[in-house]
C-alpha cells in the first residue's frame, strides 16, 4: 500500500466495477418489487394495502420469471466475479420464482378465515390480550409480510448464483432474516408461532456463524473467497490442508442447516409446525431449493478437485438424513410435522445426487428439486384447507375418512403423497430415478441401495395417510374442508398439475435440466 499516491492516481487504481445488470435482471426485479412494497407500506392507505402488495409482489415475481426465460443459455460471471449466471443458477432461480408465485398466492388467501388469512392482524399485540381481541373480526392484516417474503425470495435467487463466499453469506442472511420474522406471524396458535420464530432465529444465527468461520478459514487457506480462486488453490497448494478441511467442514455445517440435513435437522419439525402454513410452504420449498443450489455450486465449483475427500462425508450424511427423516416421520401424529420430517428425508434423497459429483448427478438434483418443490408446496397448501374451530386441523386422527366427505381435496392430497413416496407416473418417481441412477453410475451403489430401502420406509407413512383418508369412517366431530378461494385453488392446481405432468411426460424438463447442468468455472 503506497500512501504517497495522490487521490487521482488512487482513483485510477480502482476502476468502477463492471456490472451486467441484464444478467442480474431476475434479482433486480424481485428486490425492486420488495422495495416498492416497503414504500406501499409507508404511503398507501390501510384498506388498499393488501391488494396493492399482492399485485406488486406478483408483478415482481412474474417479471423475474420472464427475465430468467430470456436469460436462458447465458453463461456469464459479473459484478467483479461475485455473481455467476449460468445454467444451474438460472434453473434454480426459475424454480424458486415459480414456487414463490404459488407461495405468494397461498399467503394472500383471505377467504379461509373470517377477516383475514393465515397471517396475524397485528403482530405486536400480545396473544390473549384485550388489544388482540379488539382486532378479531376486523380485516386488519400485517401486510409487511409481502415485502418480507419478496426480500427472502430475492435472497433465494442470489444464494445459488453467488460465485464468492462473501456474497453467499450475505445472500444467506438476506433470505434468512425475513423468514425468521415471517415464522412468528401466524394468526392462530400464536404462542407456537412465536416459539418457532425464536428457535429458527437462534439456531439459524448459530449456524451462519459456523458458515462464516468456515469462510474465514478458507480465506486464510486460499487468500481469496471466490469459488474459482479456492478451486485453484486446492489444485496447487499442498500445505495447510488443516485450514482447508476445517474450513470446508464449518462451511458445510451452515449449508446443511439450511437444507435441514441430519444432524442439523432438529429445528425443522418445530419451525415448520409452528410457522403459518403458507410461510412453511415457502421455507420447505424455496429455501431448500436455493440452499441446494448453493451447496451444489460450492461442492462442484470450489471443491470439485478434492471430491474424493468430501464424498465419504456426504455419503454418511445422506444416509443418516434419509434414515432419520423416514423413521421419525412414521412416529408422527401430526400431518404438518410428518411433512416436515418428509422434507428432511427428501433432503437426503437429493444429497445422493450431490454425492454423485457428475453432470448427471447435477441434472438429476435440479430436476428433483423442481419436482419436490411443487409437490411439497401443494401438500402444505392442502393443509390450509382442512379446518376445525381452532383453525387448521393437523392432527392425523382427525383426517380419518376425509376422502368420503371431500373426494376432490383428499384425491389431490393422495396424488401428492404418492409423488412424495416416489410411485411411478408421478414426478417423485422420475426425480428419484434420476438421482439414484446418477449416483449408481458414479460408483455409489451402496448408497443407492440404502436410499431405495429408505424410500420404501417413507412410502409406508405416506400410504398410511391415504388409507386413513379413504378407508376409515369419518369421525362425527371431524374437521371440515373449506372451499378454497381463487388464490389457493390456483396454487394447488399448479402444484398438482406439475406433479402429474412431470410424472407422465418428464422428458422435456429432464432435457432442460441436463442442458442447464454445467457450472461456469
Amino acid at each position: 500500500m503506497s500512501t504517497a499516491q495522490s487521490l487521482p492516481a488512487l482513483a485510477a487504481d480502482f476502476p468502477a466495477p463492471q456490472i451486467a445488470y441484464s444478467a442480474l435482471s431476475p434479482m433486480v426485479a424481485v428486490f425492486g418489487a420488495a422495495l416498492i412494497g416497503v414504500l406501499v407500506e409507508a404511503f398507501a392507505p390501510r384498506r388498499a394495502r393488501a391488494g396493492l402488495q399482492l399485485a406488486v409482489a406478483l408483478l415482481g415475481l412474474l417479471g423475474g420469471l420472464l427475465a430468467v426465460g430470456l436469460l436462458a443459455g447465458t453463461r456469464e460471471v459479473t459484478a467483479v466475479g461475485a455473481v455467476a449466471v449460468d445454467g444451474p443458477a438460472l434453473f434454480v432461480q426459475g424454480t424458486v420464482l415459480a414456487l414463490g408465485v404459488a407461495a405468494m398466492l397461498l399467503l394472500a388467501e383471505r377467504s379461509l378465515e373470517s377477516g383475514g388469512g393465515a397471517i396475524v392482524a397485528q403482530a405486536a399485540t400480545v396473544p390473549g390480550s384485550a388489544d388482540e381481541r379488539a382486532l378479531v373480526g376486523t380485516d386488519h392484516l400485517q401486510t409487511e409480510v409481502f415485502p418480507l417474503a419478496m426480500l427472502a425470495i430475492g435472497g433465494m435467487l442470489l444464494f445459488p448464483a453467488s460465485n464468492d463466499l462473501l456474497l453467499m453469506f450475505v445472500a444467506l442472511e438476506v433470505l434468512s432474516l425475513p423468514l425468521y420474522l415471517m415464522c412468528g406471524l401466524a394468526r392462530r396458535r400464536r404462542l407456537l408461532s412465536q416459539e418457532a420464530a425464536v428457535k429458527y432465529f437462534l439456531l439459524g444465527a448459530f449456524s451462519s456463524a459456523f458458515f462464516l468461520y468456515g469462510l474465514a478459514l478458507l480465506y486464510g487457506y486460499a487468500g481469496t473467497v471466490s469459488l474459482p480462486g479456492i478451486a485453484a488453490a486446492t489444485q496447487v497448494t499442498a500445505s495447510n490442508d488443516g485450514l482447508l478441511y476445517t474450513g470446508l467442514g464449518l462451511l458445510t455445517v451452515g449449508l446443511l442447516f439450511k437444507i435441514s440435513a441430519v444432524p442439523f435437522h432438529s429445528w425443522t419439525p418445530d419451525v415448520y409446525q409452528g410457522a403459518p402454513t403458507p410461510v412453511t410452504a415457502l421455507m420447505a420449498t424455496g429455501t431448500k431449493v436455493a440452499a441446494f443450489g448453493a451447496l451444489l455450486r460450492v461442492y462442484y465449483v470450489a471443491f470439485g478437485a478434492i471430491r474424493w475427500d468430501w464424498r465419504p462425508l456426504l455419503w454418511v450424511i445422506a444416509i443418516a438424513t434419509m434414515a432419520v427423516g423416514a423413521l421419525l416421520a412414521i412416529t408422527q401424529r401430526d400431518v404438518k410435522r410428518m411433512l416436515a420430517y418428509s422434507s428432511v428425508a427428501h433432503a437426503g434423497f437429493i444429497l445422493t445426487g450431490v454425492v454423485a459429483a457428475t453432470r448427471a448427478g447435477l441434472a438429476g438434483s435440479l430436476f428433483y428439486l423442481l419436482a419436490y418443490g411443487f409437490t411439497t408446496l401443494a401438500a402444505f397448501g392442502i393443509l390450509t384447507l382442512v379446518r376445525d374451530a381452532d383453525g387448521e386441523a393437523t392432527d392425523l386422527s382427525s383426517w380419518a375418512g376425509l376422502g368420503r366427505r371431500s373426494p376432490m381435496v383428499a384425491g389431490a392430497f393422495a396424488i401428492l403423497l404418492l409423488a412424495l413416496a416416489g410411485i411411478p407416473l408421478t414426478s417423485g418417481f422420475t426425480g428419484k430415478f434420476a438421482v439414484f441412477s446418477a449416483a449408481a453410475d458414479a460408483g455409489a451403489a451402496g448408497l443407492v441401495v440404502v436410499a431405495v430401502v429408505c424410500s420404501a420406509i417413507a412410502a409406508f407413512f405416506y400410504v398410511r395417510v391415504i388409507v386413513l383418508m379413504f378407508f376409515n369412517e369419518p369421525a362425527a366431530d371431524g374437521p371440515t374442508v373449506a372451499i378454497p378461494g381463487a388464490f389457493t385453488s390456483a396454487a394447488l392446481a399448479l402444484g398438482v398439475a406439475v406433479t402429474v405432468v412431470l410424472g407422465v411426460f418428464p422428458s422435456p424438463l429432464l432435457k432442460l435440466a441436463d442442458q442447464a447442468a454445467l457450472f461456469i468455472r
Partner: protein
Amino acid sequence: MSPAYYLYLSAILFTVGAAGFLLRRNAVVVFMCVELMLNAVNLTLVTFARINGTLDGQIIAFFVMVVAAAEVVVGLAIIVTIFRTRQSASVDDVNLLKY
C-alpha cells in the same frame, strides 16, 4: 509477535461463544454468544488479511459487522415479542413444540 497467536485467540473466542450458546439459558445472552462468535470470525479475517497481505479480509469484516447489526434488529424484535407474551426470556420456557 507472530500473527498466529491472534488465530489461536480467535479460535478460543469462537469456542467460548459456541459453548455459551449451548449452555446459557437467557435468550439475550444466547444471542450475545452468537455475536461473540461473529466477532471472533472478524478477528480471524483481519489476521488472515495481515498474513496473506491482501485487504479482502478487512473488507469482509465490515460486511460481517453490517450483517450482525441487521441480525440484532431482527433477533431482539423476536426475543422482545416472546418476552412480552411469556414474561420470560429463558430458552427453556419455549417448549410447546416437541417430538
